[in-house]
Structures are given as C-alpha cells and as structure tokens.
C-alpha cells in the first residue's frame, strides 16, 4: 500500500492473542514470566544496592572523615543510587531509552487483561493510575502507622516509649513519607487515570515517562524507608542544615529519596501537562476543559518548575556528604540558610501542588451532586492559575525567624496574604455552586463538604501565620502543625477519598458499599477534627513540635488528641475493609454512570478499553450543564451518540447544534 492510500484508509489493528505488551520492532517479544516485572525489579534493586555499596567502598577506602559529618557516606549513597538504577532496570524502565540509542522504536502496545499488568511497566495510563492508587495508599498507611507511634509516645509527658533519637526519627520519617505521598496522591492515581479520559484523549503524550514516574516514585519510597535501617535522620521532613550535615547515614536516604521522588514528580507533571496541552479532543477549548483538568494543569506547572529546585538542593546536600563540598556548611564558606531558601522555594509551591488537585476534585464533584452548573467556572480556573503563580513568591515566610533581612518581612507577609485571594476565589466558587442547591448527600459529596469545613479552618489560621508577629509567636509550635494538617489532610486527603469514592466505580466497575463509606466518612471527619483542633490550643499554650517531652498541664489535651487519632487511624481501616469487600470479596457491578455525570470519563464503556474511546469525541460544550431546561449537547461520541443532560438513553439524544455536514 502506498503512503497516500494508507493515510486514507481506516486502520484496523489486530486483536492480539495472547496479549503482547511492548517490545521493540525487530526484536522478539518475551512472554510471561521471562519478561520484566516487580520480581525482577526487586532482585536487581538488591543487586544494584550491593554493587553500588561495594563500588563506593572500593572508591573511598580510607576516606572516612567527610567534612562536617564524621562519616563516610559514599558507599551508602552509591548503594542507594545503585538500588534505584537496578529497580528501574529490573522493571524495564530503561529498555526503551537504551533501545532508542540503536534507533529502535517500540511496538504499538495492545490491551492486556491479565492481572499481571499491574506488576509491570506499562504504557496504559489506567493501569499506571491503579498502580498509583495502591502505591499512595501504601505510603499513606506507612505514614499513618508512624503517626500512631508519635501519638502513643505523646500520651505521657514523662513516661516514654521511645528514646529521643528514635522519636525524632519517627517524626522525620512520618513527615517525609506523608509529604512525598501527598505530592502524588491525586496527580498520580486520579490525574493519570482520568485526565486523558476527561479531555477525550486515547492516550497520554509520553506514556513511558508516565510509567517511569510511578516506578521511580516507588523506588524513592523504599529509599526513604531505608533511613530507618541507617539510624534515621533527626531533621524532620524539612531537613534543615546544619543538623543535616551532622546527621548519621540515614540522612542520605532522605536526600537521595527526596531527589529521586523529585525526578518522578517532574516526570509525572511533564507528561500530564504536555497531554493536556496537545491531546485535548477536537472542540475541547480551554473554556470547556473540566475544572479538575485545570487544577491538574496548574499543579503540573508547579511540579515541573518548582521541583527542579528540590532536586538541586538534594544534589548539593549529597555533594556535601560525599564530595566534601560545603554548600550548607557555614564554617567553610557555605550557608545553612541556603538550604532553607532552596527547600522552601520548592516547598511552598509544594503546598499548592498538594492543595490544588483537591480543589479541583471538589469543584468537579459539586455540580454533579447539586445538579447545578459550576458557579463562575472561569473564576475558579483563574484562581487555580493565580495560586500557582503566586506560590513562587511566598517562600521567604518560612524564614521569618531565621535568615531573612527583617526589612523583607513585610513584602513576604503581603505576598502570602495575597495568595488568600485566588484561594478565596475557589472557595467562593464552591459556595456559589452550593447556594440554593438540592444537595445529594452521597459519600463523595460528604467528603467534599468536609473539605470546605476543614480548609476554612486551615486557611484562616494560615492567614494568621502569614502575619509576622503571630508567626514569631507560634513558630515551631503545635499551632503550625495543626494548621498544615488542616490544609493538607483536611483538604487534600478528604478530597482524595471523595474522588476515590466517586471514580472507583468507573475505575473498577464495582460499587463501593455506601453504608461503610458513610461510617468511614463520619469517623474520619469527627476524629480528624478532634485530633487536630486541640493542637491549636496545645500550640498556643507553648508546646513545641518534634519534642517528646512537654509540660504536665498539657497532658489532658495531648491524651485527648492521641485517643482521637487512634480512632482516626481506625477509620482508614473501614475504608480498607470497604475496598476489599466491595471490590474483591462481594463485588457488586456498578451502573454505567452511577452519579449521572456529564463528564466524558463516564461516557466510555466499563472497563474502559485500552484506547479509551471507540471514536475520538468532538466536544461541543463544557460538562456542567446540569439542571438546565434545554441543555445543549456536551459531546459527540461518534456513531450518532451525543452526550447531553436530560437525555434518558442513548436513543433519545439531544439535538446536534452543528449545521449538517456538506
């Protein structure tokens, strides 16, 4: 067939039996267990670690006194990097980059229905999304167990379960694991799974980069956990120098882990941003893309532009420990404040990397459960972009107490307070959508309403904290801790669970048990507030963070918070039980569109085919025309199927507003 003829012909791709995933043109495919999977990744990771450690020892024998640390961190660092490389090699992440050097291109990927695809390197964004769901839940529960350990220790001001070193290691590990989980908790699972479907795309722009982001994310998780075997690290999740440069070898797990996960975050943001910009279906203009996609786009901008600073900061820390540089060693011409600046230049945008997708979920779900159009859609989108832009100009408020010229404080106080304006936009968009609405109190909606309640408390206390006098007073106390748990857990994690309950029927084809879902919600909501609200008081009364002893008069409040936190932890077990029961033990097939959503993601078959849409849809309107008397068609799915609110079946479709084709 000539090229011209080929381009005019509808191409029918063969149905592969057995399924073939990947491989390279010109090379035979390796079937089943001979191909790469989680097992080979684990084996090569161990091998890579041992090899790296051995090479590090050979290279630096007799090199036992690294500047300012008193230890030789080279073997550990080489081991961790070797382990990460082995992990990626074992899972198959490096096959394509290596084959490209010989000019090889991959074969087209075909649908695989085998359960083993969840343990492999795959180009299917839905499989990657599900891998992320399990991955981030693993992160969340690990961090949660560490939180239980912290609260158990704080039951008594004087009787101790752990020594001070162990306690600070647990606190540090909890914070780091949770922050790394939180950066990916929505972008990873829901962003990867849903964004292509929501914009009417059949794939993502760089599917292998997407898969890479997940597998390097898991490698980073293992690296950070490995700190526990090296004596932990005493710095908290912020890793401040000079403590960083004096810390034991566990610090290397923190630095390498943060840098490795940073690479994964950049990869995930890069792929999704390019996908949203280029793969929107015909007619999916910027004013028609779902608000959740706007939030992911704003988040991806932050992931790709702010995270390199974290990677650079981590690299400098690694060099300080291995090559004997002195970036963060003041006595040798460096500065411990340099770390603070670099870390927070990433760290504050990271707060919005965590918050924005949560806002996106809430704004996406509200119209579905209020049967009203999203109030002020463009204001919400502008708010998200505004938050993303302003987040680059506020980092110095974390240094109000340290390395900042006092004259600069008012400027950063102002920029920090300014950011509450676009955040307020998003909040008011939610209020406007709820106004006079007939709300359906389904489980996802309950989580969305909780986000408003929690984030209001978190946001308002954030405005207090941006004010220099208040900041100086409560800095480093439990007040700050309560504030960011209200914003991150109260906002992001509640939104994540709302999103999970909402989209899991689509992702799995199964219905989650509603009764268990409501039990989960009420336990989590009530005991979240009972855990963290007392911490505002504890902080105002003077209890510092990261210290395992405290004044006797604060024991009652601490005990109250601890006991509440145990129930809060147990509430997650209700979710796990619901998930296992509803998906695996007694699965109930989900209706095609259980929430009557107009989103494109719900207009596909379940399970969603590998190629998502039988025909690439043509988008005619934004997906928020709920409750209107004569709603316009939302999208043309091809083969005469139009999506519209109010139509009761595929046969009674809305009128096509376009002129008839010539």
């Amino acid at each position, binding site marked *: 067939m000539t090229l011209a003829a080929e381009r005019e012909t509808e191409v029918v791709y063969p149905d592969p039996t057995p399924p073939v995933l990947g491989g390279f043109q010109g090379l035979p495919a390796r079937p089943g267990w001979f191909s790469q999977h989680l097992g080979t990744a684990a084996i090569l990771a161990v091998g890579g670690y041992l090899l790296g450690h051995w090479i590090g020892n050979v290279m630096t024998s007799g090199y036992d006194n690294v*500047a300012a640390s008193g230890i030789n961190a080279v073997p550990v660092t080489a081991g961790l990097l070797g382990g990460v490389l082995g992990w990626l090699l074992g899972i198959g992440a490096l096959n394509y980059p290596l084959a490209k050097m010989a000019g090889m291109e991959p074969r087209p990927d075909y649908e695989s229905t085998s359960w083993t695809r969840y343990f492999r390197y795959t180009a299917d964004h839905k499989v990657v999304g599900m891998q992320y769901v399990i991955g981030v839940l693993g992160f969340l529960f690990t961090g949660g167990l560490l939180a239980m350990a912290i609260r158990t220790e704080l039951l008594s001001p004087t009787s101790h379960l752990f020594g001070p070193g162990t306690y600070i290691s647990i606190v540090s590990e909890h914070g780091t694991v949770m922050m790394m989980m939180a950066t990916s908790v929505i972008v990873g699972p829901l962003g990867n799974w849903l964004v292509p479907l929501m914009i009417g795309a059949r794939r993502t*722009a760089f599917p292998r980069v997407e898969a890479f982001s997940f597998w390097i994310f898991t490698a980073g998780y293992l690296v950070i956990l490995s700190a526990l075997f090296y004596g932990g690290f005493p710095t908290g999740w912020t890793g401040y120098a000079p403590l960083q440069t004096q810390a034991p070898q566990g610090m290397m797990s923190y630095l390498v882990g943060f840098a490795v996960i940073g690479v994964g975050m950049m990869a995930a943001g890069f792929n999704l941003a390019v996908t949203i910009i280029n793969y929107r279906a015909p007619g999916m203009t910027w004013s028609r893309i779902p608000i959740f996609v706007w939030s992911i786009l704003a988040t991806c901008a932050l992931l790709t*532009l702010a995270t390199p600073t974290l990677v650079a900061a981590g690299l400098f820390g690694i060099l300080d420990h291995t090559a004997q540089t002195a970036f963060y060693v003041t006595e*040798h*011409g460096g500065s411990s*404040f340099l770390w603070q*600046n670099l870390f927070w230049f990433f760290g504050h945008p990271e707060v919005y990397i965590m918050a924005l997708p949560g806002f996106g979920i809430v704004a996406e779900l509200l119209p579905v459960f209020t049967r009203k159009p999203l109030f002020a859609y463009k204001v919400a989108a502008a708010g998200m972009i505004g938050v993303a832009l302003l987040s680059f100009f506020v980092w110095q408020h974390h240094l109000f107490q340290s390395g900042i010229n006092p004259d600069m404080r008012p400027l950063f106080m102002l920029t920090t307070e300014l950011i509450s304006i676009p955040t307020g936009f998003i909040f008011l968009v939610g209020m406007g959508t709820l106004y006079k609405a007939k709300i359906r109190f389904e489980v996802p909606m309950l989580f969305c309403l909780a986000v408003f309640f929690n984030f209001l408390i978190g946001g308002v206390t954030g405005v207090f904290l941006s004010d220099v006098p208040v900041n100086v007073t409560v800095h480093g106390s439990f007040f700050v801790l309560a504030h960011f748990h209200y914003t991150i857990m109260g906002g992001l994690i509640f939104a994540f669970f709302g999103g999970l309950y909402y989209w899991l029927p689509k992702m799995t084809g199964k219905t989650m048990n509603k009764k268990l879902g409501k039990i989960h919600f009420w336990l989590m909501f009530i005991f979240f507030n009972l855990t963290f609200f007392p911490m505002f008081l504890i902080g105002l009364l003077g209890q510092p963070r990261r210290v395992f002893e405290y004044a006797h008069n604060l024991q009652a409040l601490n005990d109250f918070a601890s006991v509440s936190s145990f129930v809060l932890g147990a509430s997650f077990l209700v979710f796990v039980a619901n998930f296992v029961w509803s998906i695996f033990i007694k699965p109930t097939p989900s209706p095609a569109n259980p929430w009557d959503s107009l989103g494109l993601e719900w207009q596909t078959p379940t399970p969603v085919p590998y190629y998502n849409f039988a025909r690439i849809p043509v988008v005619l309107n934004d997906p928020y025309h709920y409750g209107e008397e004569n709603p316009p068609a939302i999208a043309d799915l091809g083969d005469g199927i139009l*999506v*519209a609110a109010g139509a009761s079946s595929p046969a009674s479709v809305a009128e096509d507003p376009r002129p008839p084709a010539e």
Partner: protein
Amino acid sequence: MSGETAVTDTADKPALFTETPEEREFELRAAVGSYWTGGRLLIGMYTFLFASLAFAYFYLKSNNSGQLWRPKQITAPTGIGWAIFAVVATSALLAIYGQWRMRKDSLLDWEVSGWVAVLGILVAVGLQVWQLTQLPFFPGSSGYASCFIGWAVMNIMMLLGGAYWLETNLALCLRLKRLDAEDGDPSTSSGPSAQLFRANVESCTYFFGFMAVVSGLFWVFFYLI
C-alpha cells in the same frame, strides 16, 4: 438514581481498535505538538535547576561566610573552562546549522554535523571530568569551590542528556532512511514517523541552543566575575 444522562452502554464496546484517517491526523498533530511542548517544558525544568545553582552562587557570594566565598580569588583551571565552553558552543552551532540544512533538504549535512556535535559534547564531558582532577582547591574549601563542583556535576548531567537526545535522533534517522525510502528521506517524507522525527530534531536543536546559553552564563560566573 434517575437516568438523567445519555451514556454509552458498557456492553457495546467494539471488539477491535479502529482509527479513521481524521483520527490518525489528529493523533499525529498531537504527537508533533507534544515534542514541541515537551522540548520547551524540559528547557523550563532545566532553567529552574540551573537557576537554583545560580541562586546558590550569588547567595554564598553575597553572604561571604567567614570571608570564605573565594579566598585569594582562586579560580578553576581557566584554559580547560574556556575549552569546555568553546566545544559546547561549537556543538550547539553545529546542531543548529545541521537543522537549518535539513530544512533545506540536505539530510546528510545534518547527520554529519549531528555526529560531530555528539562527539563534541562527549569531548566536553571528558574535559569537564579532567578539569575536576586539576582543581587548585579542595571542594569544601570555599563557597566558590562548592558551587564549582555543583556546576561540574550538573553540567555533565545536562551535556550527557543533550548528547543522548541527539544520538537517538541520529540513530533513528539511519533506521528511517530505510523505512521511508519510497517517500523520500526523513527530512522530506510526509510519513508520520518522519514528521515526528523532524519535530523531535527541532526540539533537540532548541535544547542544544539552551545548553550553549547555560554554558556561557556559568562560564561568566566562574571565570570572569
């Protein structure tokens, strides 16, 4: 719950994946656009990475902790630094020239200049490694020394990334020349692979220009001021 929305049914999914000509054109446009966007976004990411180093440089310089920013105005070997910058800049110019020639339908010129550019970048990496063995200062002896080591590591990473990108394009070109023989070589063919290849080369060339700019800036930082 009332069925308020018209949806496709879960049962009637087509057995096979089909693509219409319009869909193939759409996918191709999206993929070409992805190379364009991806290339620019990658440059944005690298910009923030190197901006972090530039921030460290000026922050430590202005702090001058213990008068240890740059004792005795010590400098990394200037001759090698000059050579690295010259080689990187020449390689970037070659990549840009090659792409310009490719647009004029001279694929061979692009291939020759591309392979030379790859070789040049590898030489620059070699020089950078050699320079690290010739330093007249200890890495932790000053702020300047620390920043220089950081620069060397980041520069090697950037140069190797650029060389890898261009090499994969050159290798792909060799393969495409055989596949697209009927419709012209990759610089002229209207085939999807050739269009993607050209988009990829365009972004790669842009990245080479970026590498030259970064090399120039940090050359000024470390050797001139």
